């Protein structure tokens, strides 16, 4: 009846109490849930029955002589109703911990996706370094999520997987799952994280390895899907530029991107530099080389792996679009860089 090590467990069907369970641990969780559920039902019905029966049978009413008061203690009974629950709870405890260990110990060969929670979005970094706001995982393959938050505590919850873990700043929390059935399932943030907490909802797409690969390739090679301009904006938002650089001129930690491109900028050492493609590229690769006057050299450098040159070029297009000093033609920025040629 109860198979503990069912790594390739089949999905459990949706019931009145539980949604469809589509992960390898779902069957264990559901089994224990229903075990406790029936224990609960049994004891509740027992108590309810006794309460009702006693309340009716022994209720004070005219013409009913109260029977001789019952006993006021009975050690045998006390022992019974202490021992039986003890046995039950120890069993539940044991199964609970066993199941929890299965949840905790990921297979060593698990593929790894980094999950970053920030007010109020999820960001997923795939093994190839591509960061995206969509979560896709291949069916039947163990996936390990490494959870981390940029600001406050969030909680990464996927009811269909019966899984949940807080996403804590300055900590790596880990979670692994082996999805057993294709489909799209909701992902919630379960730890209150501010005004838009209830909007921090995403979804996970479980799909066959082939289509997962296809999607990842497509997503990481934006040329085929986005114009440089769109891509630039995408990277500006997903690669962390947005945190320190505004595009509306407001001064945050770093200088704003508004009207920078093509302008002449004064550096800390007093020198003046024309903000052209070379300057932007250098400022991303080695930010401390030239530091704009009045700013701290706090920006981390981006390597070729974390931000390929073509992505930087896209960002440059985005800067151009935000600068009144750039009088050139935006045309190229608005065309697909590598249109998929039809066969």
């Amino acid at each position, binding site marked *: 009846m109860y198979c503990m090590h069912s790594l390739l467990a089949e999905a459990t069907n949706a019931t009145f109490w539980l949604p469809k369970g589509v992960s390898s641990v779902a069957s264990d969780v559901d089994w224990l849930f229903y075990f406790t559920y029936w224990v609960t039902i049994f004891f509740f019905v027992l108590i309810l029955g006794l309460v009702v029966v006693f309340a009716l049978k022994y209720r004070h009413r005219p013409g009913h002589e109260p029977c001789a008061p019952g006993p006021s203690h009975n050690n045998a009974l006390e022992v019974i109703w202490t021992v039986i629950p003890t046995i039950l709870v120890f069993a539940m405890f044991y199964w609970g911990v066993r199941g929890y*260990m299965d949840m*905790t*110990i*990921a*297979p*060593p060969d698990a593929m*790894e996706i980094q999950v970053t929670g920030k007010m109020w979005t999820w960001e997923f970094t795939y093994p190839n370094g591509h960061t995206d706001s969509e979560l896709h995982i291949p069916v039947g393959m163990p996936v*390990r999520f*490494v959870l981390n938050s940029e600001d406050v505590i969030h909680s990464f919850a996927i009811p269909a997987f019966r899984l949940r873990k807080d996403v804590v700043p300055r900590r*790596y929390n*880990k979670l692994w799952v082996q999805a057993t059935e294709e489909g799209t399932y909701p992902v919630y943030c379960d730890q209150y994280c501010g005004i838009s907490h209830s909007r921090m909802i995403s979804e996970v797409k479980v799909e066959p390895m082939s289509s997962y690969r296809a999607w990842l390739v497509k997503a990481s090679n934006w040329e085929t899907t986005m114009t440089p301009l769109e891509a630039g904006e995408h990277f500006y938002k997903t690669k962390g530029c947005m945190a320190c650089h505004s595009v509306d001129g407001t001064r945050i930690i770093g200088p704003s991107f508004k009207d920078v491109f093509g302008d002449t900028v004064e550096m800390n050492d007093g020198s003046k530099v024309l903000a052209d493609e070379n300057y932007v590229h250098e400022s991303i690769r080695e930010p*401390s080389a030239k530091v704009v006057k009045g700013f*701290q*050299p*706090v920006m*981390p450098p981006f390597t070729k792996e974390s931000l390929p040159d073509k992505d930087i070029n896209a960002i440059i297009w985005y800067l151009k679009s935000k600068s009144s000093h750039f009088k050139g033609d935006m045309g190229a920025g608005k065309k697909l860089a590598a249109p998929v040629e039809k066969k």
Partner: protein
Amino acid sequence: MAQLTTTPLAHPVGHDAHNGHDPHLAHHFDTMEQQYRSNKTGMWVFLATEILMFGGLFCAYSVYRHNHPEVFAFAHEALDRKWGAINTIVLITSSLTMAWAVRAAQMNQRKLLSFLLALTILGGAGFMVIKSVEYKTKWEHHLFPGRLNVYNKEYKGEAKPYADLLALKNGDEEAAMGGDEVHEAPTAAAIAVPPEYVDPNAGGPDAAKIRANFAVVPGLSDKANEHLEEHLTLSSLNDLDRSRINAFFSVYFLMTGLHGIHVLIGMGLITWLFFRSLRNEFSSKYFAPVDLVGLYWHIVDVIWIFLFPLLYLIH
């Protein structure tokens, strides 16, 4: 006998119940002893809450010392164990005079009582004076809690070079403020940029298993378990640890500050006793206030007895 009888009251009832009774006996107590005992119990329960309250701070202290022994070992150099020891002795002495005062009250030695209470107040005052001297040094070198601390990465105060805490303790101002490269303030960048990135999940299948179970999590300070050399210098700490030095001072000031407040409250109470003792209010029949305040004063001492080695004598 489980039966009930209605017996006449053993004592007169009502507010005018005090007639013929000790004026200090509250109307809801039968005897002075009952009143005394319940006061004692009440006071002890209150002391328990005090201990638990400081317990929270001790917990914060333990967690951070446990995770960053090297940081604590380095930062505590700023504290002067000479003054700490002297303060311990001052406080113990005032405890003695307080205990003696209780005895004096119980034995109707009125003059002695007032004198001992005065001594105790002096002891407390001395303790606070020494503490303020210590605080002053910290203040001058921007070693205050949180953002007021020069090691805090949000520190906004005037940029002073970092103090050589060891020299600071030995009162060697020049060495302390001499900003040679070892003691240079790490720039904001130095704090912000991590040393090198560690893949949290590196390691074979076993590593993964162990880690998933109770083992050390990747990223835990490797210094945490390793044995420490005698005198740490700032250069022997990595940037992350440097940025964390202010945690020690936060704990230090919270603990000693909260303790200091208790000392002040105690002094206030003892002053109150002092004036009452001048009015000869205490006797072998009525000395509960002296006794209870005494208990409070001793618990303040007890807490310091723990604070001293934990804060001043780390190594």
